[in-house]
């Protein structure tokens, strides 16, 4: 199954999903299409004026173009997701996920989609980490269809 994760570039989530035989929908694969394109229009990321327009599918015209541009990357991942794991209160917000409003919108769309969703808090110590890992592996096992 295709599993969306939030944060979409999390190492821990991606690794756990891949271990269980499912397909993680990671942001890096979306970025790859932007940076390896042989016809790069606007280096270094090749984000063009077309991207905020694509983002209109997910956010209204009044929403800042930065949010719409980000949604043009996150949105297609949400569209194809068959299940989701959301980790709240992640302390990092680097790169393309460093925008609180885009993050809120992405989580909103994942919840709204009505797919099986596991919501967790980012662990900070050993006990919490053990609990989070066990919950994720149990959730992925219950999904089946790997």
């Amino acid at each position, binding site marked *: 199954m295709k599993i969306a994760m939030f944060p979409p570039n999390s190492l821990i989530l991606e690794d756990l999903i891949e271990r269980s035989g499912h397909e993680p929908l990671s942001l890096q694969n979306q970025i*790859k*299409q932007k940076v*390896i394109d042989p016809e790069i229009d606007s280096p270094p990321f090749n984000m063009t004026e077309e991207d905020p327009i694509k983002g209109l599918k997910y956010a209204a015209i009044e929403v800042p173009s930065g949010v719409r541009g980000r949604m043009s990357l996150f949105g297609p991942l949400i569209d194809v997701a068959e299940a989701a794991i959301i980790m709240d209160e992640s302390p*990092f917000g680097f790169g393309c996920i460093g925008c609180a409003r885009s993050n809120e919108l992405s989580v909103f769309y994942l919840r709204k989609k009505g797919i099986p969703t596991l919501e967790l808090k980012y662990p900070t110590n050993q006990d919490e980490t053990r609990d*989070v890992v066990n919950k994720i*592996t*149990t959730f992925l096992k219950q999904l089946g269809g790997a």
Partner: protein
Amino acid sequence: MSLKNESKEDLDTKMIILGPASGVSSSELVQKIHMLKLPLTIKSTCYGAMVHGEPDVVKKAVEEARNMDEFNIFIKDRGFPPGDPRRCRGHRGAAREGFHQLEKEFKLLGYVGEALANPKEVSLEEPQKIPVNEFHEIAKSMDLNDEIDE
């Protein structure tokens, strides 16, 4: 297999990250991947290694690498190819952006590996608070009624 005819977009890049409790060193990992004699670009890094090549070859290399220490080797996709001047630390003069996140998550990898080695089925439902009346009943049944009233 030649990489020459492949479009760059068809190639995968994976980061192989050694957890803090891993018994494998970065050089051992790179040596192991080299010994597989697969048509890959392999880069030794401070966190482990990076492999770049055709998806099925990368998958095979990653599986072999994971088998070296199943619970302490972690895999992550990467968008930029190895040594890309837009991301390479050597060209930027500072840590690349993704490294900060990696550094943050690395702190938990030891615990993650430990949890993976000792899996446990758990309930996915959040524990709920019990109603006051029910709590009162439980207290009564335990002869703690007087203490509760106080």
